[in-house]
């Protein structure tokens, strides 16, 4: 494979051209399947040559048409994403898959279908509890999802194809983890903004292509002659579907280096690999129940057990402060935040807790909040 030295630039282009790129794929006969959340088992789609496309919103535009169809007391990321759908931006999708992750996800599929019918839709019931019975239940659910996808494409997934797909997605997870290791240096060898663009690019292209991009990015990091930023206060960002790099960019513009994240669109979706087992479906079920630490799942334990991984992240990446960047109306994160903040404070990490709309239209206010917090870390 030829490694170009343009990985980071390519990521930037792909991020900016996500939608046109997906439209081209669709026009070339690829079946592009939209999906929400990091709980959708994308491996099953890849195994059948379908292209999983993570549904995003548009942070720099107000919601224009969705208000006529969706209540305002709903997560504004979901409203923004649905607004794009209503405006026809997602008309290239052949289908849509929604896992039952939170209350907004539970409701959005039927609303979408009513106003933007699709050839294929599927709703996956994902247990909210952990444990063996939850894994067994999800395994059954995923078998039915697989069957439904097989009917869509008209052929069966072979065991080999599924294992290959899991390996390919695991390769992406491993490469991303490798890239994250370069954030540990001080100053980091890749900025938070650059990584956010890479992640955003990856959400709209086939995983094989993403893996090539990641190799290019690693090559870029290894061969770059200067650090992307100087020594700055190092922060970790925690939250949900922060899918637009502009938020990370804004934090870095305000004088911090975002060196680690716990976001649905970040490490949360790839920090653990799917563990190989004899039964591939069992592996997938165990992964999606156990390995993703979204607050939508009930995990027993006190804060020092539930959030220990986050403090481990913070220490491993030499973080000086944590930004809880939460969207309004996201109940899972909102109910977790005070306990999490108190725990992080006890462990010696200053915390900025923000509850925001999914928008950059209030950039000025956000900038002030970020700057004030980062100054305290300096």
């Amino acid at each position, binding site marked *: 494979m030829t490694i170009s030295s343009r990985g980071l630039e390519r990521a930037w282009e792909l991020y900016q051209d996500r939608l046109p790129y997906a439209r081209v794929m669709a026009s070339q006969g690829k079946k592009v399947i939209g999906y929400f959340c990091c709980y959708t088992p994308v491996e099953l789609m890849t195994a059948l040559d379908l292209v999983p496309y993570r549904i995003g919103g548009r942070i720099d535009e107000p919601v224009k048409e969705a208000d*006529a*169809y*969706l*209540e305002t*007391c*709903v*997560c504004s990321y979901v409203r923004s994403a649905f607004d794009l759908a209503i405006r026809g931006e997602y008309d290239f999708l052949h289908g849509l898959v929604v896992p*039952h992750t*939170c*209350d*907004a996800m*539970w*409701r*959005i599929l*039927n*609303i979408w*279908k*009513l106003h933007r019918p699709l050839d294929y*839709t599927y*709703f996956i*019931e994902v*247990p*909210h*509890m952990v*444990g063996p*019975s*939850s894994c*067994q*239940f999800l395994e*059954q659910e995923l078998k*039915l999802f697989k069957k439904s996808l097989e009917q869509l494409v008209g052929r069966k997934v072979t065991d080999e194809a599924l294992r290959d797909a899991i390996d390919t997605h695991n390769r992406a997870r491993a490469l991303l983890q490798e890239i994250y290791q370069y954030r540990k240096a001080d100053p980091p060898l890749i900025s938070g903004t650059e990584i956010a663009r890479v992640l955003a690019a990856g959400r709209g292209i086939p995983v094989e292509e993403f893996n090539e991009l990641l190799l290019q990015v690693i090559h870029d990091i290894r061969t770059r002659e200067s650090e992307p930023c100087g020594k700055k206060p190092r922060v970790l960002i925690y939250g949900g579907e922060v899918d637009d790099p502009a938020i990370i960019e804004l934090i870095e513009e305000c004088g911090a280096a975002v060196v680690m994240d716990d976001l649905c669109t970040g490490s949360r979706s790839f920090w653990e690999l799917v563990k190989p087992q004899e039964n591939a479906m069992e592996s997938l079920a165990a992964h999606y129940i156990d390995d993703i630490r979204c*607050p*939508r799942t*009930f995990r*027993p334990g*006190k*804060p020092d057990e539930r959030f220990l991984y986050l403090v481990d992240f913070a220490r491993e990446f030499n973080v000086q402060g944590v930004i809880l960047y939460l969207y*309004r*109306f996201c*109940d*899972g994160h*909102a*109910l*977790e*935040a*005070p*306990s999490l*903040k*108190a725990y992080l404070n006890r462990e010696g990490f200053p915390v900025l*807790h923000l*509850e925001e709309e999914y928008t950059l239209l209030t950039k000025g206010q956000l900038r002030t909040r970020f700057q004030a917090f980062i100054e305290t870390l300096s």
Partner: protein
Amino acid sequence: MADDTDKKKEKRTQSARNVRPLVESMYLRAHQAREQGQKVAYCMVMSQYDEILAAMDIVPVWTENYGGLCATLGTAQPFLEKAEAEGYSNLICGYARTGIGFDALRAEIGEAPQTPDGGMPMPDMLLGSSIGCDTRFKWYQALGHYMDVPIYCIDVIVPPVNRDLYEIKDFYVKYQAEQLRGLVKFLEKTTGSRLDPDRLMSIIHRAEEARHWWWKAQQLCRAIPAPMSARDHFNIFVPHHFMIGEEATLDFYKELYQELKDRVDSGIGVVDNEQYRLLFAGGLPPWHSMGIFSYFGSLGAVFPAQLAYPPPDPFTIPDNINDPIELMALRSFERFTYRWEQAHRGCGDFWVQHILDLVPDFNIDGLVMHGVMSCRATSMGQIYYQQAVQKYAKLRTLFIGSDIVDIRTYSETQTKIQIDNFLETVETHRSNKVRN
């Protein structure tokens, strides 16, 4: 709130009047249980575990009910403010904010705050579930900050409507049973007592009988004029949701049935001049301002049915199941999927189907939905319901907006204007229909 003139226009049932003393006795019993060393559990409604608690003599405290009670009595504000001061968003569930605020204050002052019915007694355990919304398991985890008691949560799975029920039934029921068995194991460990399956089975039978009488009573509300007011509807669900399995609950619904039957037989309606029949079709009631329903009544509008707390759909206990946990799991599946087949064939959505089922049966003229600022689970989709319903039944819909608990989000004047305008459109729509 609606003034006294509004209230006088509605004829309340004696059954509904009997609810408040039942609630007082419920809290009194919980406090006494605590003092006497009986195990007390914080619980979430509709979690499918009610009869298990009754069979194990665990005294439930329904924390959502306490939020509603405080809102109704106008005492929720200090708790809401305390929760917000503790860092909880003012957008999370009003019940949860009330409960968290209450427990945060108790932790701070060392005793239960002075509140209605003595407040909630300190629990020995917290029993959450995933039924209905995410808050039902996140709330209790948040309480870990204020009390050191064990938490156990179970999944309660609602099958997706677009599925082949025959394909999913076995593993959905199996999972539900496993979740309930996990709970029983936890309860046995926490209480040191074993669950008696025969006692549980007997309680299930009694509970189902009570549900049957409630369902029958509800069917009487098809009558014109409607025999029960909206405010009564929002009271009479209480024994079922919070005291199921008790003899008193069974008696309550039998008496309710008889009272409504007497009214129907005598042609007694909620209001003297019934003009509009409305369905409360989305959201939860604005507990802080229930008088608004009397305002509807004062304008001749009644609510023969409501979907916030409807009676559970019919379920017949099969003869061939001896394991009560298996039975409860099956019951859960059957109830949740009661309207699925019809929804498959028709509108594709179980909630919309429920509305469509009720409209002809209860002669509904219009829909009312309450957009609850702090409740995604009951508010998201209301516009969709309205739009989906329009494909099958042309009905006018009123959307009012506030909260279940937090009165700061509510404007009575604006709501009354909305109601006035809405009833005018219902009238116009009806006149046009007659003309055409």
